[in-house]
């Protein structure tokens, strides 16, 4: 899949909604992410993003803290609420 036009999770601002498209991340990290609710098609909303440092997203009702590097590897598409 070509994700060059997709946004990465770090591009979302607070209270923005998006749908996960894919992630470009190692198997161990991917296993952790899916067990916390991140799967392609799942909706996420940005809970905290100050433009630097780690951010918090809400996925399937769970708040998850992500490092900026990890969040940059998760590709999303903006969606309405």
């Amino acid at each position, binding site marked *: 899949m070509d994700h060059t036009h997709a946004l990465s999770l770090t591009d979302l601002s607070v209270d923005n909604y998006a749908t996960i498209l894919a992630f470009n991340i190692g198997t161990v990290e991917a296993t952790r992410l899916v*067990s916390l609710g991140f799967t392609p098609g799942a909706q996420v909303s940005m809970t905290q993003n100050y433009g630097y440092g*780690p951010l918090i997203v809400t996925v399937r009702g*769970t*708040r*998850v*803290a992500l*490092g900026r590097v990890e969040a940059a590897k998760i590709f999303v598409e903006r969606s309405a609420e």
Partner: protein
Amino acid sequence: MSDCHSASVPLQPVTLRVRERRPLLALAGQPNVGKSTLFNFLTGLNQHVGNWPGKTVERREGSFSINGHEYGIVDLPGTYSLTANSPEEVITREFILREGPDLVIAIVNAANLERSLYLVAELISLATPLAIILNMMDVAKQEGISIEPEVLEAALGVPVIPMTATRANGMQAFYQTVQEILDGRHVSTPRLPEIRADHRATLDEILSHIQGYVPSPYPESWVALKLLEGDTEITRTLQNNLPAEKWEAVYNLLRQHDDALLAIASGRYEWIGRMVRAAVVHPKIGQISLTKQLDRWAVHPLWGLVILAGILGLVFWLTFTIGSPVQGWLDAQIVGGLTGIANQLLASAPFWVRSLIVDGVLGGVGAVVTFLPIMIIFFAVFGLLEDMGYMARAAFVMDNFMHMMGLHGKSFLPLFLGFGCNVPSILGTRVIDSKPARFLTILIAPLVPCTARMAVVAFLAPAFFGSNALFVSWGLILLSMIALVLSGTLLNKIIFKGQRSAFIMEMPLYHVPNSRTIGLLIWQRSLSFLKKAGTNILAMALVIWALSMLPNGDLNQSYLVQFGKWVEPVGRWMGLDWRLTVALITSFPAKENAVATLGVLFGSSPDAALTQTLTSTFSTASALSFLVVTMLFIPCMATVAVIRQETNSWGWTLLNIALFLVISIAAGAGVYHLALAIGL
């Protein structure tokens, strides 16, 4: 064997093996679902905390009796899934598959049903009977979520028991259902998650290759699924067990389908979606939850740090305003009292017997046992913060700071625990996914001043510095933190070449702490501390006493003094005389020994308090240097043992010891000469 991944299973009553012994229940669940609360409620003090064989994960088991039935219960470690990411997942699945409990009880968070059913999606595919506890019904209600347990039960095909474990609501239904299942009166017809059609074919193909090569007790279809999910542990096992050409075929399949993990996980969430659709009514969005309100402050880049600093400050303030006076009182009343009694009773006994009891046993262990009030304060505060859900916030706000050392926020959690004791802190590094980051955290973790070291400081600082004790203590903590950051940054550059690891962490909902959970935690930790005081530290106190008596009963000619004088030249760089040097060396078995040793060396007597003797004996510069070196010296014996165990390498362990020797001697010498230079 039944096919584990078809959509529905023909009516299959769960049959139980007839056992002579009491039934064994296993509690499973994701982190933050209230598993320990339920376990503590059921077992109370009838529980035993140990380690899983060969692992450093806590194994908690216990028993309880209801209506004349006795049950054994094991609290499995909290895991998000059953794919081997860490020892917790391996322990959970190995226990269920190998030890075959009579019933697995999966606890899910009613306020976060979708996510917490992910583990259930995996557990339900195993052959062991399953019951589900829908916990935190009160939190769900607060968040405006309404759930119908009967609808969920009908959808899943396994018993679902609503509960609020913190208030012991739903216990009667729980006892009744458990007994019904064990008696075979509950017919379960679990509906299992499906896998997408295109991967279904791959799964069958893998299955055909591995058939007959899967070691017991693993179900073959489960192994095929775990291979497809990229489970490292199962992949390794099969690689060893399969003939080369079969492994080749499996390996090629796995490579072509490296996206299967996402498909399988999506399949599980689709299944969860179907299960909860009818049973759950979600709230209208718009209400601001307690967690959201608190997190505006607790995870704010600035206010979050202020709050964290405030909490740490509060802990130390409590230590000094409550812990130290209680400790002083215990020391004077109990230890002083017992010493007086022993002296009277043993008046006619030979000199060495009286000395053994008074100086050796009471002098050594007595001083250590008086640390208990300070320990309890730490255990209570950390238990409280953990139970409330604050610890994840502390990790989050420290993430930026930890980046300076090439680490991330998760490394802060074990370091934070280190303020209590360095042993759990080393064990706690397991939450860090990457090995370099974990090893770096292990290397620097003992620089966090533990309760035992703080207790030594709390005892000696007021003696040496009077009303300035609090500032000196703060300075010592600050110094330790500076040493930690400096050595972390340097080690990261030199050894680990600036690598970093992934930061992915759940931020649990805040909830009201449970007094029973915290109470039991304090009880268990205190008990294990007293056991340590009663065994290791007693033994060490006796060894020190013997070395101070042999060969002829004269302290000044004893082996201990001879040894102290032999290494004194090194001590003198730091302004330490032989007594302080000996005290430092004896702090290796347990940091608290530093005080106990000084007690023995100065001969504790009720009329002349140790603190007064110390004040009149040592200069301020020496005292300051001694405190600095004590803070930074080689980690205690238990910590070193755990470092060896966790790194599985003597090389890393020796590197750690060498590192701390260099840091402590350099800092001690530096502080001593600086203090002399400014005229202290």
